[in-house]
């Protein structure tokens, strides 16, 4: 304790000197100040209720808030609001704007913040201000190095009297500790311990810049988890997903581990040791989070549990080893969120409405980088944040990108869970841009097909005059001619079928004229086809390599012709029979022999076609 008290002494001295040099502030008086300091976690959360009275004659529109410098330097979060009413009827009104203000001639050991009041406070008026401030790094581990067996003790320095540039009429302070195990605390008049709470005051009629240093030394079991650097990447896809990826560089900022770590003692069942270490971290993710993963450079870390309901998703992750003071770990968690929960349209613009900070509970982030990756083609990007952040823009190249995706990079140091407020990223985006990705894929496939088409058409032979090459060329032509012959034969056979169909129609309807017309058209069609066939046959005969095939083809053509003739003859007979009004049986008898030949011929033709097909 010697060391701390000397620090405090020095501070007191400095303050005493500085107080003399302080210029007079306005005539405001704090009629009642209630301070509550919560140190149950690693963050010191201070809430103050200040009742301000204007005792001067001029109206005042600015209020000055002060903290000792050693606290002010570690201030992570500060909001001031004003309230009306008392007790349960208390209503919090608008947040007031606060800015750091260091006027000339004010002491260096005090941090000043200037609060603009909602309306100027005229003579005799009162106003109640609610101040919430969060400090990091103010709980100093003491001793600074402990062994695995030791408990974790920390120390808090504050002032029992409210440090203010105004006169304070009545002031009280209560400090809420994590448990009742208190090593020591500065005993002043009117100080008492109630369980895990220490109370100072009330103190009456304090002068300006009153300062009564106190030190509280107590046990803390809270996880002193600090992310030295946290990169949150939020990627928006208009195909229905918001992907969040968080890279943590975590360190335990409590008392450092002295000596060696024994896993055996750590896991000893009846008396487990290592209470200063933490093994779990709890992340409270938004509801409907899916595809959650937890990994590091080695790969997946399997020690995580997830619970979800309609309001939240809780992810309990366990690093690969328990973290003792000074130990570090690195890991990545990622999760997908449904698009419609976070993306909205308003006045022709779209905006992403998403939480700024880490979802980890009671985590302090020293350097937080939030990268919001918007879809390719987003324009007019603007960001609104409830607090100041450093902003910059980047381009990221990802899947199926040409111009790259615009990235909004937000940076903030010393982030506490109080900063987990929603930020809005506004941008313009046209749904037409969505089609660029499928179009790119389609083009890719089409290029592949075109390559195939070109390949099959290209001639890759080196020697254009070799015998084998020429033979191949000729054979190609033979095949082409054969295919054409085949096509024509198929057409002929189709025409035959048509003719037969016309005969069947005739027997059903007795309409001779239609049948004759069909015959006529088929006749001319078949004639055309045979005309087309002639040059093909001639060219086929001219190829030496086709000497084996051409007789077969000729046979096929001849048979087809015969079939054609027989069919015509049958057709004529039937039509004549109908014209002479012969009976159905009579006609059938007359064509019976023709029909047999036709069937036989058709069979032969089909066989030949099949043979040629196989070449």
């Amino acid at each position, binding site marked *: 304790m010697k060391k701390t008290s000397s620090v405090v002494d020095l501070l007191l001295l400095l303050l005493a000197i500085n107080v003399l040099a302080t210029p007079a502030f306005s005539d405001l008086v704090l009629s009642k100040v209630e301070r509550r300091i919560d140190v149950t976690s690693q963050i010191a959360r201070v809430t103050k209720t200040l009742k301000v009275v204007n005792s001067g004659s001029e109206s005042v529109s600015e209020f000055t808030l002060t903290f000792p410098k050693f606290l002010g330097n570690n201030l992570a979060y500060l909001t001031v609001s004003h309230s009306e009413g008392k007790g349960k009827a208390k209503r919090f009104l608008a947040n007031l704007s606060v800015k750091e203000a260091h006027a000339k001639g004010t002491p260096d050991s005090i941090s000043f913040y200037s609060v603009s009041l909602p309306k100027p406070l005229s003579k005799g008026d009162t106003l109640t201000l609610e101040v919430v401030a969060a400090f990091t790094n103010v709980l100093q581990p003491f001793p600074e190095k402990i062994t695995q067996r030791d408990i974790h003790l920390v120390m808090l320095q504050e002032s029992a009297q409210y440090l203010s540039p105004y006169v304070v009429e009545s002031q009280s302070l209560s400090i809420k500790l994590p448990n009742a195990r208190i090593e020591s605390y500065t005993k002043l008049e009117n100080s008492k311990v109630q369980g895990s709470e220490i109370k100072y005051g009330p103190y009456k009629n304090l002068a300006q810049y009153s300062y009564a240093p106190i030190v509280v030394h107590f046990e803390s079991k809270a996880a002193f988890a600090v992310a030295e650097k946290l990169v949150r990447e939020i*990627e928006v*896809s*208009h*195909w*229905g*997903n918001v*992907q969040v990826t968080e890279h943590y560089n975590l360190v335990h900022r409590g008392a450092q581990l002295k000596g060696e770590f024994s896993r055996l003692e750590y896991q000893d069942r009846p008396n487990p040791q290592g209470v200063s270490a933490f093994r779990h971290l709890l992340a409270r993710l938004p509801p409907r989070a899916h*595809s959650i993963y937890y990994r590091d450079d080695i790969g997946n870390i399997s020690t995580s549990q997830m619970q979800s309901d309609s309001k939240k998703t809780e992810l309990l992750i366990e690093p690969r080893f328990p973290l003792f003071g000074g130990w570090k770990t690195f890991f990545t968690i990622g999760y*997908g969120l*449904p*698009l*419609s*929960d976070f*993306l*909205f*349209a*308003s*006045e022709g613009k*779209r*905006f992403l*409405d998403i939480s700024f900070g880490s979802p980890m509970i009671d985590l302090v982030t020293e350097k937080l980088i939030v990268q919001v990756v918007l879809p390719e083609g987003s324009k007019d990007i603007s960001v609104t944040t409830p607090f100041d952040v450093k902003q910059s823009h980047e381009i990221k190249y*990802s*899947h*199926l990108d040409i111009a790259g995706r615009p990235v909004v990079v937000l940076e903030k140091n010393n982030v506490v869970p109080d900063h987990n407020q929603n930020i809005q990223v506004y941008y313009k985006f046209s*749904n037409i841009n*969505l089609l660029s*990705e*499928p*179009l790119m*894929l*389609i*083009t*890719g*496939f*089409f290029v*592949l*097909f*075109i390559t*195939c*088409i070109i390949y*099959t*058409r290209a001639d890759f032979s080196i020697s254009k005059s070799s015998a084998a090459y020429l033979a191949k060329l000729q054979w*190609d*032509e033979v*095949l*082409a001619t054969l*295919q*054409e012959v085949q096509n024509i034969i198929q057409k002929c056979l189709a025409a035959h079928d048509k003719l037969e169909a016309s005969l069947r129609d005739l027997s059903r309807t007795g309409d001779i004229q239609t049948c004759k017309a069909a015959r006529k058209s088929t006749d001319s069609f078949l004639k055309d086809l045979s005309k087309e066939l002639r040059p093909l046959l001639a060219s086929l005969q001219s190829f030496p390599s086709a000497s084996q095939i051409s007789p077969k083809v000729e046979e096929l053509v001849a048979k087809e012709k015969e079939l054609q003739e027989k069919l015509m003859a049958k057709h004529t007979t039937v039509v004549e029979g109908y014209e002479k009004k012969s009976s159905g049986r009579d006609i059938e008898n007359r064509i019976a022999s023709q029909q047999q030949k036709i069937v036989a011929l058709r069979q032969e033709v089909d066989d030949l076609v099949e043979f040629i097909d196989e070449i």
Partner: protein
Amino acid sequence: MAATPIASPIPVAMYPTLSVVTLAIGLVITAFFFIYEATSSRKNRSLGKELAAAAVASVFLGFGSLFLLLASGVYV
């Protein structure tokens, strides 16, 4: 004007089904294309037919592979 939530143009739950269907159609047409390329002789191959098959197949394969990416969690 009140903010309205924006959803994806096609429900996310549909992606697996869509990807299977469109990829199946695309692959069938691709098969037809390659069979045609391999069986028709160089002289009487029709460029129009080839291009038509290629275009239709690439549209189906393009959308199919997009839906496959989305269904497997690669949100492009």
